C-alpha cells in the first residue's frame, strides 16, 4: 500500500557521523543543499551534487533501497513535471504528432527538472532519515527562537511538528483499519470515475476525522496532566552543543557551495 511507502519523516536508526551532527547543522546544511540545486546550471553541476550526496548517504549507512522508497510516493509528481516540461518547452522540434511536439530543449529541461526533484527528495530524506524527528523539531525550535521576539511562536510550531510526527504512523494505521472495515462492507476505493471515487472517500474520511479529534482531545488532556503549559520555563533533556564534527561539516559545506557556484559559471554541458 502506498501509505506505508512514505519514507519522508521516518527515522533510520544509526550512529554514523551524519547521525551525530547537531540537528541545526544538518538543517542548515540541507537548506543549503536544496538551494544549491537551484544554483546549478548544468549537468556537470548535478553530477557534482549527486556525488557529494552519494558520499553522504554512504557515510550515513542508510541503505539506498530504503531511501529510494521515499521516491515511490512522489513518482507521479516527478513524471508529471517531466512530461509538462517535455511537451511544453518551445524550441527546435524533433518529433511532432498532432498538437503534441517535443523539442530538443524540452528533453533537456525534462531531464533537468526530474533530476532536480529526485535530488531534492533524496537530500531532504537524508535529513529526516538521520535525524530523530524530535531532534529535528528541537533544532528548528532553536534556529527559529530568535524570531520569537518578533512574535513567531517557535515553540508551538515545534510542538505541533513533534505531535504530527508522533501521530503520522497512528493515523496511517487507523486509515488502514477503517479502509479494511469499509471494504468488508463492500466499499470500493479503487474503481469508478473521479467523482465516484471522491464520494467513495467519505466513509473513510469521516471516521478518520472523528478519530483525529478523539486523539486530539485525549492527548490534550494527557499533556495537561503531565504539566504541559507551553514553552516558558521548560527545560530539555537533550541539550544541544556544536562539536568538532559540526565545525568540519560547516567548512565542507562552505567549500561545497563555492564549488557549486564555480561549476555554474563554467561553460559545461
Amino acid at each position, binding site marked *: 500500500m502506498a501509505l506505508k511507502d512514505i519514507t519522508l519523516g521516518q527515522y533510520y536508526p544509526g550512529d554514523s557521523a551524519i547521525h551525530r551532527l547537531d540537528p541545526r547543522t544538518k538543517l542548515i546544511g540541507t537548506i543549503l543543499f536544496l538551494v544549491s540545486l537551484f544554483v546549478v546550471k548544468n549537468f556537470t553541476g548535478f553530477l557534482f551534487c549527486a556525488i557529494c550526496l552519494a558520499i553522504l548517504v554512504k557515510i550515513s549507512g542508510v541503505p539506498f533501497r530504503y531511501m529510494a522508497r521515499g521516491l515511490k510516493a512522489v513518482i507521479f509528481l516527478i513524471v508529471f513535471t517531466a512530461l509538462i516540461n517535455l511537451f511544453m518547452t518551445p524550441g527546435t522540434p524533433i518529433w511532432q504528432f498532432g498538437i503534441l511536439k517535443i523539442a530538443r530543449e524540452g528533453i533537456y529541461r525534462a531531464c533537468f527538472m526530474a533530476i532536480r526533484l529526485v535530488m531534492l527528495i533524496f537530500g531532504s530524506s537524508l535529513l529526516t532519515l538521520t535525524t530523530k524527528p524530535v531532534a529535528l523539531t528541537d533544532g528548528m525550535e532553536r534556529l527559529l527562537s530568535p524570531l520569537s521576539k518578533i512574535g513567531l511562536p517557535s515553540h508551538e510550531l515545534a510542538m505541533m511538528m513533534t505531535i504530527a510526527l508522533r501521530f503520522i504512523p497512528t493515523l496511517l494505521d487507523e486509515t488502514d483499519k477503517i479502509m*479494511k472495515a469499509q471494504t468488508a462492507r463492500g466499499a*470500493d476505493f479503487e474503481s469508478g470515475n473521479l467523482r465516484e471515487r471522491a464520494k467513495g472517500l467519505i466513509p473513510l474520511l469521516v471516521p478518520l476525522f472523528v478519530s483525529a479529534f478523539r486523539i486530539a482531545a485525549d492527548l490534550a488532556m494527557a499533556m495537561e496532566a503531565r504539566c504541559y503549559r507551553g514553552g516558558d520555563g521548560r527545560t530539555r533533556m537533550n541539550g544541544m552543543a556544536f562539536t568538532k564534527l559540526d565545525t568540519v561539516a560547516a567548512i565542507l559545506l562552505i567549500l561545497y557551495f563555492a564549488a557549486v557556484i564555480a561549476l555554474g559559471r563554467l561553460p559545461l554541458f
Partner: protein
Amino acid sequence: MRIEVKDLSYIYSEGMPFESVALEDVSLTVESGEFAAVIGHTGSGKSTLLMHLNGLMKPTRGQVLADGVDIHEKTKEAREARRKVGLVFQYPEYQLFEETVLKDVCFGPKNYGFTPEECEAKAIEALKLVGIDPDEKGGVSPFELSGGEKRRVAIAGVLAMDPQVLILDEPTAGLDPKGHRDILDMVCRIHKEKHLTILLVSHNMDDAARLADRILVLDKGRLAMDGTPQEVFSHYEELHSIGLSTPSSSELLHLLKSKGLNVNTNIFNEDEAVEEILKAIHGA
C-alpha cells in the same frame, strides 16, 4: 455456509529484509451453522487469518473456499461469496460515518447493489437483531449513541448484508462487564435465530468454553489445536506453554489436583466445578 481454508500461508513483505511469516500452512474447515472460537496470543496470526476469510487479504499461498467457491477469484460468484462472509473488526464503532443510524446500516447492502427499499428493509431487520429499536434510534446520528449502542449499530451494519458467516474480532474489547455479557448474548441469539456460522475471536477462555462448539488455537501463525472445547481445554500444559490458559474453573481444579485433591480437571463451568469439588471433598 461452510468455510474451508486450504494450506493458507501469508508472508508480509516477501523478499524484503523485514519479511515475516504471519500464517503458515493453516488448513481448517468450519461447518455450516457451527460456532467456532479462535483463541491465540496477540500476534499469533488471528487477525491475518480473519482478513483472509472474506478476501480482504490475498494469501501468499493456499486458498479459502466458501461453499466450494474460491473467494479470492475475480468472478461475480466470488464477490457474492465474500458478501456472505461478514467481518466485524475490533472496535467496529470506529467505522460509523453516516448522518443517521439507518443510513449507516444501509451502507453495506447499498454497496452490493440492493434497491433503496431493500436496503432499508435489511437495515431495519439488522437493527432489530442487535437490539436497537429502528423507530427510536434509526434517525439519530450514530455519534450520539452510547459506546455499547455504537458497537451494536456497527455490527448491524455487517448483518444488513445478510451474511451466512459472521466473524467477530474481539467484539467485547473495551466494554464493561454488562456490555460484554450483552454483546455475547446477542451473538448467541443471532447464531440461533439466523443459523449463522460464527467465528469469534476471544481472549477469554470462559467465554470460548461457554459459547463455542469448536475451538481453534493459533500460535505463531500455525493452527496449534482444533477441536471441541472438551478436547482443546484438556491440553492444560500445552496451552500454558504457548501463553494461553484454560477456563477459570479448570484452572482452579488443576490447582486443587496439584494440592492432592482428586478431581476431574476437565470441567469448564462454575456450577459443574462446584459439584465436582463437593464430590471430591465428601468422597475424601
